[in-house]
């Protein structure tokens, strides 16, 4: 993947040291404590949908050089209740005796500010985190976070809610939700001196997360290079470019051709695409197993990876203000470029042999015939430019004799014209490219 562009270099983000401060021994396991905050489970579903690498590969310990992961996850673990929360409790009390990573999906509610000590918007487990007292008190996810994060090897925010607050933190929310960075504060560092790592997206591309986790563990095992993060803690190689740059519709944008309605195949900016100003890699990497991606399918980008999501990109379905300028310019400039390109395609769509014979032997289209005078004229100048200072293949091919067995069916007198008539019966109107 390309990430050497001007936007790919983060401006002044701290870099992890080339050698990790500690080192996970080859036979050592790393625990991952997953917490669900104010999320929708979509991040866990994305995690389970990842394949590069896949969730189960971490658990099997079949990724060479990457320590085996003991996954504690409300959607995937074996045991419920206290048996499930006990290792979390041990880690919070510093009694786990093994390195661990904390992953949060979902944003963090303002539960610590609730008037009732037992109220919560998001809780997991009950009875007290530091000591298991058997009280009624629900264990707030906020408390798990502030107790687990300091001792962690690293703390990762999975998805836009955990990374930037997302929809639960949007205008009109009544839970006071915020991101993990907001909650832990700008001074937070893990026990390995790493600030919060953010893998945004709503929901994120699963591979973005598993790849980051794999990179982190590879480094922590003393083998891989330190993963690079940008000034907001995003994996720099994944979020260093705008999604527009790799968009399959970027060529339409360049030529100034825009979709007017959903389902049109052109650039989607006029039906609300924010891609030119959004850092995301989904069209390049694909959504699942390298397939799909918003604009690949035809959906306009609403900036779901960005800290401003959703409010700074809403209302959706409305062209971003900047597009009136850049889109307008591209219509004029792109329109001219497009016409020139179509001219050169006219000659490119002809075998040199057809030029010599001055006919196109395709029964698909009745309209293809000898070239017009203008076409010949344009082609002449085009070739002059193209071959200037080097070999003129156009002139070379002119000397090539026509193959003798062209149009063999006519030569042999075999009747084959029926099918041609059938094809001509129904001709499809085709839009110009």
């Amino acid at each position, binding site marked *: 993947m390309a990430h050497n562009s001007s936007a790919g270099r983060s401006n002044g983000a701290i870099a992890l040291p080339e050698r990790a401060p500690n080192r996970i021994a080859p036979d050592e396991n790393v625990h991952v404590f997953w917490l669900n905050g104010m999320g929708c489970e979509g991040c866990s579903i994305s995690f389970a949908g990842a394949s590069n690498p896949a969730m189960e590969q971490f658990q099997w310990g079949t990724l060479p050089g990457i320590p085996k992961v003991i996954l504690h996850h409300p959607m995937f673990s074996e045991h419920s209740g206290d048996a499930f929360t006990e290792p979390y409790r041990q880690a919070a009390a510093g009694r786990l005796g093994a390195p661990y990573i904390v992953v949060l999906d979902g944003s963090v509610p303002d539960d610590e500010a609730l008037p009732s000590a037992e109220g919560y918007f*998001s809780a997991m487990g009950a009875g007290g985190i530091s000591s298991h007292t058997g009280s009624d008190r629900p264990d707030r996810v906020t408390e798990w976070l502030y107790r687990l994060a300091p001792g962690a090897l690293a703390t990762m925010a999975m998805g836009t809610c955990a990374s930037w607050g997302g929809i639960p933190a949007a205008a009109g*929310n009544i839970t006071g939700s915020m991101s993990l960075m907001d909650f832990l504060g700008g001074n937070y560092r893990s026990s390995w001196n790493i600030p919060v790592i953010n893998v945004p997206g709503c929901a994120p591309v699963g591979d973005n997360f598993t790849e980051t986790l794999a990179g982190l563990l590879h480094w922590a095992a003393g083998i891989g290079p330190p993963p690079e993060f940008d000034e907001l803690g995003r994996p720099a190689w994944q979020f260093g470019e705008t999604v527009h740059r790799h968009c399959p519709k970027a060529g339409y944008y360049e030529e100034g051709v825009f979709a007017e309605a959903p389902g049109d195949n052109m650039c989607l900016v006029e039906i609300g695409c924010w891609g030119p100003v959004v850092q995301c890699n*989904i069209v390049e990497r694909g959504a699942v197993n390298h397939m799909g991606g918003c604009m690949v399918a035809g959906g306009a980008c609403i900036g779901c990876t960005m800290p401003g999501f959703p409010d700074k990109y809403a209302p959706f379905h409305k062209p971003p203000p900047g597009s009136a300028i850049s889109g307008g310019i591209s219509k004029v400039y792109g329109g001219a470029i497009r016409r020139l390109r179509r001219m050169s395609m006219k000659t490119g769509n002809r075998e040199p042999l057809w030029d010599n014979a001055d006919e196109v032997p395709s029964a698909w289209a009745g309209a293809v015939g000898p070239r017009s005078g203008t076409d010949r004229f344009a082609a002449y100048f085009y070739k002059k430019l193209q071959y200037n200072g080097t070999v003129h293949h156009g002139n070379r091919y002119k000397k090539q004799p026509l193959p003798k067995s062209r149009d063999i069916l006519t030569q042999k007198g075999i009747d084959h014209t029926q099918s041609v008539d059938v094809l001509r019966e129904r001709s499809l109107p085709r839009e110009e490219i």
Partner: protein
Amino acid sequence: MAYRLETPREGGGLSGTRQVNFDPVVRVAGALALHTTIDHDRGEVVDASVLGTLFRGYETILQGRDARDAIFIASRICGVCGSSHAATAANAIEMAFDIQAPPMAVAARNLLLATECLYSHAHHLFVLAGPDYSEPVVKATNPELWARAEGTLARGVATHGYERISDIMTGLTRVSGELYAEALYMTRIAREGYVIIGGKYPHPQTTVPGGISSLIDTSDMNIYMLRVVKFFDYGRKVAAVWDDIIDFFYEANPRYREVGARAPNLIDNGHFDDPWAYDALYENASRWGEARWATPGAVVDGRLVTTDLQRLHGGTEEFVDHSFYENWSGGGASGDTSLSANHAWNKETIPAPGSPSSSKYSWCTAARWDRHAMEGGGYARLWITSVANKSPHRMFCEPTGSGMRFSIPQASLPATELEWRVPQSWGALERNRANAYSLVHTALISYDLVLMCLDLLRKGEGRISTEFRIPKDSREGMGLGGSPRGLVNHHMTMDKGQIESYQVVTHSTFSASPRDGSGQPGPIEQAVIGTPLLSAPGDESYIDVLRAVRSFDPCMPCATQ
């Protein structure tokens, strides 16, 4: 009440009555806790409370937004079935805007919804519920069953390839089992198809007001079809695996029918609109509802009482007596006086975070239909469609009045007929079996929909969106849709293009509900109460209690929003 927390004391003798809490219940979708009172002398659960332990406030966040934005916001209510919320929100918008998505868009939305079922059922059956029947779990909780499984030949060996029941149990093992890993792989195959049209999963980027923002062409359908047909063989395998496991448990001990048992009170909106019958008008909902490929309906005490979508919707109420909300003043946000003050559309969401020691113990409201505690799920859809016998579209799936016959075309395995029958008893294992057959059902529907999309392409009817104007007056719209786990209702009122109120009720608002105003427990609570303890004395995992909960396939982000 069982929502006093008490930890089982280590080494304590398992006799007498004690309170056991499962907080959280893992391997379900979302934040769910279960508090129970277990009577060891009687050998069963005598009280249960289900706690939804998360509230995000989507209904409030949606207020005041551009009505068109409801799709992309509401989709995020649930990341296990985002497609369903996106499609249901689109239906609500289209009803309010008085526009209709063209046939190709309806077919494509159906296809996305059906593919979502493929991934979701596989996920439920093997990643969430399956491990409860796996080698390590059975060995630990019922060593005698493991010994028996080693000596029991599996009847479906020709289909699934496992010689003995114990081999299937080994396959079901969490993380290391073949069936576990295969299910994860298959969920990814389903998603690969999904993202071709949806762009991404779980929150699709192409569901838009008036249609779908995706150009569907031959390549898309080719890629989709290649993935869908993999579910022909896989669906047969899944059905055979679960038939074998379930028969084994019943034969070993008929009391497994009592695990998670309750009266079959089921509700579903139906699923998969007929592109030519659906007109996005509420007054015609009864008609287009019955034209759905899966039929709407309510089953009370095992009897089908209605297939009328309007009646289903009209009878839906929500109660907050035991939920962390304040009662709303009534009068009704919907302004519709024919609906009860407790009708879901008249509800206002007024959260009051408290602790479970008060009489309020869950973030889930108590949704009821006709005052009955109903459960929703893929299994409810299969049951209702089977007994209603009204589905107009029967290319590969034939309801019989007492079951559903599937004609599975040849893939790697030869073509075959398969039949699901309405069960004699209703409990955890039958829910799982019906979900396994739902996988077959939705695989065939997905295939059918691919063929329909191809047919529309052939006829040149590829148009996939509709032009619209945002109405300037005040409007009301609702989506009465479905997800893999059952019904999804969205209700929106808007004025000058802005949302005034937005209310959501889903399958799990029914299934995972707490007690209602009259003290009637929710469906999961009812199913857990009376569940016998069939594991070896001393099993503190209470595996049968968890089997009961997981069989509902509850989804808490859907339940509590």
